[in-house]
């Protein structure tokens, strides 16, 4: 019932998944800023190509990558069309429907293409991060960078329980379906509402049992985190080198105006 989470790839073992999450996060953050601050489409497109290359080398299928890129691209597409119709001064395509004239503007088109490049470049970085790093490592890394402990605790707890709830929700959905719960629009809405309510109810009930199990292991309300693992020098160096390259690349495209 649910789309496949990219999470499963993060569990494989390759040179990218083995890298420390803190290094990856830093590199990704700098790259993202570079992409959205870029003066033109060249840098974002290069980043996209690099990300896709890295992912393909990590054996993430092309089909998966394109499935994940499709949705952001479509939003960019809609915005491209809107922009082309609305902004700019030089029409390059004009057509008429009866007495109405519609013009697509060149400047708007360039704006739109630039926007689309930004979207795929940034999505590339996002996909790289998500396919190579499980969420709890990202949360742990954020904690190291100073995120509040209560946020990290809540995030880890949500992440942990999501998967069991997804299984439960799927089972309930199929159980409803085989009993014709989705036979028409009205019943589909009702069944969906029941499904949502059931998921909430299940989570409330489970939290009581989880709480008991926590108390039975000495939980009194506070949370104790474990220590952070050592940051490997190799990973830190790789991140630093990457960031330096991004700076250089950014300076280059600014100078060239692309």
């Amino acid at each position, binding site marked *: 019932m649910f789309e496949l989470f990219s999470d499963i790839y993060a569990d494989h073992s390759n040179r990218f998944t083995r890298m420390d999450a803190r290094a990856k996060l830093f590199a990704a953050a700098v790259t993202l800023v570079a992409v959205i601050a870029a003066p033109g489409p060249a840098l974002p497109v290069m980043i996209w190509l690099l990300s896709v290359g890295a992912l393909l080398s990590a054996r993430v299928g092309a089909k998966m990558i394109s499935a994940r890129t499709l949705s952001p691209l479509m939003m960019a597409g809609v915005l491209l069309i809107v922009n082309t119709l609305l902004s700019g001064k030089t029409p390059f395509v004009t057509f008429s429907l009866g007495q109405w004239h519609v013009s697509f503007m060149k400047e708007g088109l360039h704006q739109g293409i630039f926007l689309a490049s930004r979207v795929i470049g940034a999505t590339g970085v996002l996909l790289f991060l998500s396919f190579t790093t499980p969420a709890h490592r990202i949360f742990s890394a954020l904690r190291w960078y100073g995120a509040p402990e209560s946020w990290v605790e809540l995030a880890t707890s949500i992440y942990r329980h999501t998967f069991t709830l997804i299984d439960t929700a799927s089972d309930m959905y199929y159980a409803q379906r085989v009993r014709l719960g989705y036979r028409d629009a009205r019943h589909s809405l009702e069944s969906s509402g029941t499904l949502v309510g059931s998921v909430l109810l299940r989570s409330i009930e489970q939290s009581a049992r989880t709480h008991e*199990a*926590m108390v039975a*292991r*000495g939980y009194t309300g506070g949370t104790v985190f474990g220590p952070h693992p050592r940051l490997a020098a190799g990973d830190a160096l790789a991140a630093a080198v990457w960031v330096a390259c991004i700076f250089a690349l950014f300076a280059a495209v600014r100078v060239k105006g692309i």
Partner: protein
Amino acid sequence: MGIIELRGVSFRYPEGSLALDGVDMEVRAGSFTALLASNGSGKTTLIKLIAGLLVPAKGSITLDGEILSVLTPKKLYGTVGVVFQNPDDQLFAATVGDDVAFGPRNMGLDEKVVAERVSEALASVGMLHATERSIHHLSFGEKKKVALAGVLAMRPRLLLMDEPAASLDPAGEADMMRLIGNLNRLHGVTVVMATHSIDLLPLFADEIYIFKNGRVLRRGNAREILSDHAVMHGAGLRLPYISSLLHEMKMGDGLPINGLPLTIGEARKRFLELIPDEVFLRPIGDEQN
């Protein structure tokens, strides 16, 4: 005096129905006690009462002679470990290692000690290789083992288990029972286990309590209980299959069996006593010559 003693314990569900009625129990240190009952007879409630998660409406529960309610949580859970039926209710961290470390960390132990406890506990259940894995990628049997490890890491003297073998496949069930048996025989951990799976019990249990509708129907050692046909059926349970077979042959076909075997090993001995030697003269392979 036993490590755990219950005197006249009664408990009522929030809706009003009686879960337990006047239960007396005594668990000796180092023993393996099984609570045998069919579903809905209050065994989970009893486990929660002994774990101090619920308070009895009537009667008293003592641990090492002290009433449970006066014990601090730290003292209580440092001594009593509880493993619930559904592992998903008990695994709350993202990785296996983190989850097993939850108990020791709450006990305030030093991080080095915590790490040692974690590897020790995971090794004892055979899951040391999975320390860095995400919990939601584990199979059901693996989750059950990790849940057990999480409790073992606290080094409890008494282990309370609610249906540890439920929903496991036959290999998993045998594995789990062997694990628990070793904890009891080799490491001296007192075990109290609620279950309705019969066949492996005779190999491990010292004392068995039969429950029905919140009352103790009978208590005694494995031999007494598991051969008491009437009580077992009255409680909605059955004998071990091998015992059922021989019981039927004894009662129905007049087979002169000595006593009622509970395990395959015993049954074999009894059969060998009955079968004349001539039957064994020719080894099976000779038929082909």
